[in-house]
């Protein structure tokens, strides 16, 4: 079970870390001061979740690794985040919609993981859920604001939807390890989660009067370590010091 569990903890941790890393790029560059602070708040919360999840993964790992080793010393093919979270930060509409899709997913996921049979994960989920609910309120409000205000904002969020929509099915992908954890009630059945997610998303997109794109490339691969070109650059940046000065304390 440990191998499957470590795999899933890394899936969750890598997702939180890559999303946080992209949001953190906004720090000092937000559209106005209050929003600069809010984006950084979300980035900090996600980084906190990532840290807890990596620590748990390190603890149960057969290998002698720390949370930092997992974040800073694995290459692209070992990262398990969905491709959605490694996409560039884009403009504010792109960041907002990406965040909304993930927040809507995380709220449902962490609400279910609170009841996980694996106690450490249930504890992390309980903490993360509180923060994620706030994130969802915020990103949902911004989707409405951008969609129902000016033509320019509406065009930008529609363009973001066209680009991002087919990255979302990957959030619900499973593999043998995850299916085992689902069977053991360690994590929820993601196909059930997907139905709830789709209802909520359809409702919001409808309220926003946005058009769901008809077709596009459906992203896949993160769980297997198959990523877009973007992740390599993100890791080159993020892991620079650990790679350039191996074995140091910081």
């Amino acid at each position: 079970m440990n191998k499957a569990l470590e795999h899933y903890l890394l899936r969750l941790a890598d997702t939180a870390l890559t999303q946080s890393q992209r949001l953190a790029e906004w720090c000092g560059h937000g559209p106005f001061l209050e929003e600069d602070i809010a984006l950084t708040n979300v980035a900090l919360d996600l980084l906190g979740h990532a840290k807890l999840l990596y620590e748990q993964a390190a603890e149960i790992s057969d290998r002698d690794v720390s949370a930092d080793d997992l974040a800073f010393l694995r290459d692209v093919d070992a990262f398990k985040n969905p491709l959605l979270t490694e996409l560039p930060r884009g403009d504010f509409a792109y960041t907002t919609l990406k965040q909304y899709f993930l927040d809507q997913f995380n709220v449902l996921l962490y609400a279910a993981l609170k009841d996980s049979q694996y106690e450490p994960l249930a504890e992390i989920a309980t903490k993360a859920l509180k923060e994620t609910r706030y994130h969802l309120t915020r990103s949902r409000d911004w989707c409405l604001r951008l969609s129902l205000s000016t033509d320019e904002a509406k065009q930008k969020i529609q363009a973001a939807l066209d680009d991002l929509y087919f990255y979302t099915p990957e959030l619900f992908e499973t593999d043998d390890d995850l299916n085992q954890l689902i069977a053991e009630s360690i994590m929820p059945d993601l196909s059930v989660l997907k139905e709830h997610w789709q209802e909520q998303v359809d409702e919001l997109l409808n309220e926003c009067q946005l058009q769901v794109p008809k077709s596009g490339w459906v992203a896949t691969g993160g769980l297997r370590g198959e990523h877009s070109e973007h992740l390599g650059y993100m890791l080159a940046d993020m892991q620079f010091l650990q790679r350039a000065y191996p074995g140091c304390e910081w």
Partner: protein
Amino acid sequence: MYSQGLQDAKGGPEPEALLKAFQKRIDNEEKIEPRDWMPEAYRKTLIRQMSQHAHSEIVGQLPEGNWITRAPTLKRKMILLAKVQDEAGHGLYIYSATETLGITREEMTRQLLSGEAKYSSIFNYPTPSWADMGAIGWLVDGAAIMNQVPLCRASYGPYARSMIRICKEESFHQRQGYDIMTVLARGSEAQKKMAQDALNRTWWPALMMFGPSDKDSKHSAQSMKWKIKRFSNDDLRQKFVDVTVPQAEHLGLTIPDEDLKWNEETGHYDFGEIDWDEFINVIKGNGPCNKERLAARQNAHDEGQWVRKAADVYQQNQQDAA
């Protein structure tokens, strides 16, 4: 007479009786509040100083923001992100406090972007290595604390109150910077070199943060009288040197000043002459990163334009519908 030459908003002389009563309140350590009468020059001095302070917090996000995505551990990344966010928060408090003097944040932002308003020249220096995160926290935030602790007693109430909260956070910032330096100074040879190089880069610009020498400081005397300022630039600079030299010794790092030595007679460290030409040049806009810093602010402002507009229009639509 202290009031000589003070002019009201229309350029006429300030009423003598009001000026006297105002100064008396200041002398009695009473706080001046937004609705109170105040001389126009007091208002202008505060707007200049407080907006410069707020701009410094905002521009100051950039040199450290430069390392957020590259911080070496999860813990360091969290601390740095939180610290840079604190700076945005400080900017927000101080802009809000400055707005009580009758200027809008939009106007202050315009003044920053047009170059009319200044910000601390320290942020026009680059941060090429991780150790600069340590040096900035230790020295730049250390110097800021020296400057800002007396401002907690500034005569203008909203400024003083915002500074009390800011100083608490700054002292955490300073400690985290010193902690980064401590780890580097005890680390590998490459890390020690990184730390020493960052100290070499930051030392003189940090000393310049206290402003021109007292003999050249054009705003000082009046600000002292109004208790916006409590200590002279040179006194604060000396205090900073006296506190910091033993800290550098403790780290095993060398302060880049051959003239630095303990003076038994004065009980202070003597130190070398600051390169005032460099100081003036950087303030004029000719520092290594002036153009980049302002361009980054301008870019964030321009790219945020449609977002701010969308938020306004949405709010208006909601109000119209209600």
